[in-house]
């Protein structure tokens, strides 16, 4: 495509936005005119992306599971209902399935088709999660992928790869690190990264977290 910004930069009209911006504006206009979406709602959702949803929510769920054995059991039995107990009901159309990592089993989550992901709990998926290499290789060679994330699992550890779907969103509950016995839920949640809830990281140890 030609560069319309150059063409317009010497006159007194507006700079023409990018092709993607114009297509987005056209899409938004058509949907608003058809009554399918409300512009104020679009703004509210974007605001939520920036300020509300994010891995701090998933981390709170994990920290509660570590601290409260009854909640842990409910979370593993019905992730959607357990998250709703904490007020997180943003994904009504999908089921949350919690997967517990341990010394024996390491769960890893991928969406081989596109980018299915527990948005409400983890926020927007990272770029690598949406990229072809991760989508393709996590299933074929999960141990090699995990090594690239710095996780070198012994052969005795079973690796389970879970392919997300439109209906099922997985949340990995990482193994609780040693030396965290006295910590409250807020301190525990600080050890739980986004990646640890996808399965591409361990939870941080309290010393490492304090150091950086």
């Amino acid at each position, binding site marked *: 495509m030609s560069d319309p910004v150059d063409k*317009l930069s010497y006159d*007194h*009209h*507006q*700079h*023409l*936005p*990018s092709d*993607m*911006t*114009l*297509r*987005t*504006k*056209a*899409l*938004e*206009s*058509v*949907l608003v005119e*058809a009554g*399918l*979406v409300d512009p104020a*709602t*679009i703004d509210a*959702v*974007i605001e939520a*992306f*920036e300020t509300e949803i994010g*891995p701090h929510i998933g981390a709170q769920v994990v920290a509660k599971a570590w601290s409260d054995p009854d909640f842990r059991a409910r979370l593993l039995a019905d992730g959607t209902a357990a998250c709703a107990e904490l007020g997180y009901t943003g994904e*009504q*159309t*999908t089921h949350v399935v919690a997967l517990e990592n341990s010394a024996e089993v390491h769960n890893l989550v991928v969406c081989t*088709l*596109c*980018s*299915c992901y527990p*948005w409400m709990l983890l*926020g*927007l998926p*990272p*770029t*690598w*999660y*949406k*990229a*072809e*290499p*991760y989508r393709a290789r996590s299933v074929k060679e999960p141990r090699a*992928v995990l090594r*690239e*994330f710095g996780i070198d699992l012994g052969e005795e550890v079973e690796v389970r790869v879970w392919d997300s*779907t*439109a*209906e099922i969103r997985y949340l990995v509950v990482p193994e609780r690190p040693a030396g965290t016995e006295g910590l409250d839920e807020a301190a525990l949640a600080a050890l739980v*990264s*986004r*990646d640890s809830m996808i399965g*591409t*990281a361990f939870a941080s140890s309290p010393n490492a977290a304090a150091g950086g």
Partner: protein
Amino acid sequence: MPPEAHDSGAPLFAEPWEATVQAIAQLVVAGGHVTPQEWAEALGAAIKRAQAEGDPDDGTTYYRHVLAALEALLLDKGLVAPGRLAARLDGWRRAYETTPHGQPVVLPPG
């Protein structure tokens, strides 16, 4: 994996339109206009089409796929009349081209 493979404070969106298309995608599903299954399939198909056309599919072009999937799915489902998107695209382009600098750009009726 790329160097940014781990948690980072990177901005959520590279450009504002990316946030808008993501919000629209969630809203048409949440509003029941599109089922989660339809959406996942449309997005997967858009990614495959882009790959075939040489898209790097490295995650950085992801929101282009979201936009293309929305355009195709809404047309397929009859939620958007054929030609309507092109007409609105043209309307926005002309509005930018004809609005004096400093004035708000408004889409003309049509």
